[in-house]
C-alpha cells in the first residue's frame, strides 16, 4: 500500500478511535461507523497532514479507505 494510505490509517487510528489492525483498504467509511460529520473532521485533519483541501464531495461514506487514499494522492500530485 502507498505511503498516503499508511498515513491515512495512522490518522484514523490516532484521531478517530479506530484500531490500525481493524482498518482494511476495502472497508468503507460507513462500515467503520464514520458518518458525514466524521468525514468533515477527517477532511480537516487530512488538510493538515497532506496539505490539500478536501471538499465535501471528495470523500463520502460509501468510499473505501483505498479510494480515499487515491483521491488524496491525486490531489497532492496536482499540487506539484
Amino acid at each position, binding site marked *: 500500500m502507498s505511503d498516503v494510505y499508511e498515513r491515512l490509517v495512522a490518522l484514523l487510528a490516532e484521531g478517530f478511535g479506530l484500531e490500525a489492525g481493524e482498518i482494511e483498504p476495502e472497508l468503507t467509511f460507513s462500515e467503520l461507523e464514520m458518518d458525514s*460529520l466524521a468525514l468533515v*473532521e477527517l477532511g480537516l485533519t487530512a488538510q493538515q497532514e497532506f496539505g490539500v483541501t478536501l471538499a465535501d464531495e471528495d470523500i463520502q461514506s460509501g468510499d473505501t479507505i483505498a479510494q480515499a487514499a487515491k483521491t488524496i494522492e491525486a490531489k497532492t500530485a496536482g499540487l506539484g
Partner: protein
Amino acid sequence: MTSDRRPSDRRPSHAAVTGIGMVTAAGIGAEAAWRTVRAGGATAAGPVPALAGTPADFGCAVTDFARAGLVERRKAWRLDRSSQFALAAAKEALDDSGLDPATWDGARVGVVLGSGIGGAATWEKQHRVLLDQGAQKVSSLLIPMLAVNMAAGYVAMECGARGPNLVTATACASGATAVGVARDLLRSGACDVVITGGTEACLVPSIISGFSQMGALSTRRGEPHAASRPFDRDRDGFVPAEGAAVLVLEREADARARGARVHALVSGYGASADAHNATAPDPEGAGAELALRAALADAGIGPGDVDHVNAHGTSTPLNDLAEAKLISRALGDRPAVTSVKGVLGHALGAAGAIEAAVTSMTLEHGFVPPTANLDSQDARIEIDVVSKVGRDTRPEVAISNSFGFGGQNAVLVLTRA
C-alpha cells in the same frame, strides 16, 4: 388564589430506584464511590493539570476515566467528556437494573438528565481553534459536543430509549430537578422507565476562573484534601468537581412485579425559586423552604418524620448557614444531616443526581455517611451534622436538597424500599 389546594391531595407516588451508576472523583462505579463516601475521610481533590497557571488550579477530577475504557474508542472521540460520563453511568445503571434494552418497548423509556454547563471543554478548545486558525478549522462536531441537551440524546442512542428525552438546567440543582421530572413522567403515565441523573465535566480554565472570580471557590490550594468542609467554621468556598450519576426509575408496582432489586424509593419532589439574587442564596432560605415543604407535601410526609438530610452543603459560607437555618426551622434538630460534598466536591449540574444516588444507598445500607473535614462546626449552625464517623441508624425517610444559582431549588424525598 387559594392556599388549601395541596399536592398531598394526590396519592403518594413512589418511583423505585432499580439501577445506579456513578462516575466520581471518589471512584468510578457506584460501589467504589459509596465506599469512599461512607468512609468520609477527605476531599477527593488534587491539582488539575488543565487548570495549571490559574489561581484556582485544583478540584475533584475523575482521573482514571479514559483508562477504564467504559466508552468505546469509536464513540469516545466524538463525545464531549460530559457525555462520556453520562454514557458510562447509564450503562452501569442499566446493567444494575436488570432491564434489557434489546427487549423493552423503547417508546416507553424516557431519559431526563441534568447538566449545568454542557460541553465546556469542547467549546473552550474550539474557541481557541477559531482564534488561532480561523473559522474554517472549527470542528463540525462542536455543536453536538457542546449543546447542553446532547448527553440525554446520546444515552437514548446507546440503548434505544425513544420516549421523552430532555436535559434540565437549573444550575447546581439540575441533577435533582432531573430526578424529580423523571418521577413526574412515571406518575403521569408518559413513561414506564426513565433513565435519569446528571453529568458535568467543566474543570477547564474559563469556567473555573469564572467561579473563582465570583469568590465562590475554596482557596485552600495547599491542602486540597481539607478544602471542602461543609458546615465547618473554617469553610471558605466550594471545591469544583466533575462526574455523573444515573438512576433507573420505574413505578414501584412495576419494579416489584418483575422482582427487581429496589435500592430506595423517590417519594416526593418540590421545586421553587428564591426570586432574590443571581448567585447569593436567600439568607433565610425562604425560597428553598418552599421547595422543601412542597416535596414533603408531595410525599405525604410530615416534617417530623424526616430522619436524614443529604444537604446541598457546598462548603460556601453563605449556603451552609442559610441551609442550616432552613433545616432547623423546617425540620428541627431530629434529622442527621450530612454533606457528601466534603468528599466529592461540588459537581455542579451532576451534584443533585450524585446525591440522589448516595441518598438511595444511604437508605439501602441503613448507614449515614459522615461529612468530611468537619472539625469544628460553625457555632451559628444548630443542626445535627454527622462528622468523623458515619451512623448505622437505618433511616427510613431522607431529604436531598439541591440549590442552584439563579435561586433555583429542587428537593427530593427518598424513602427506604
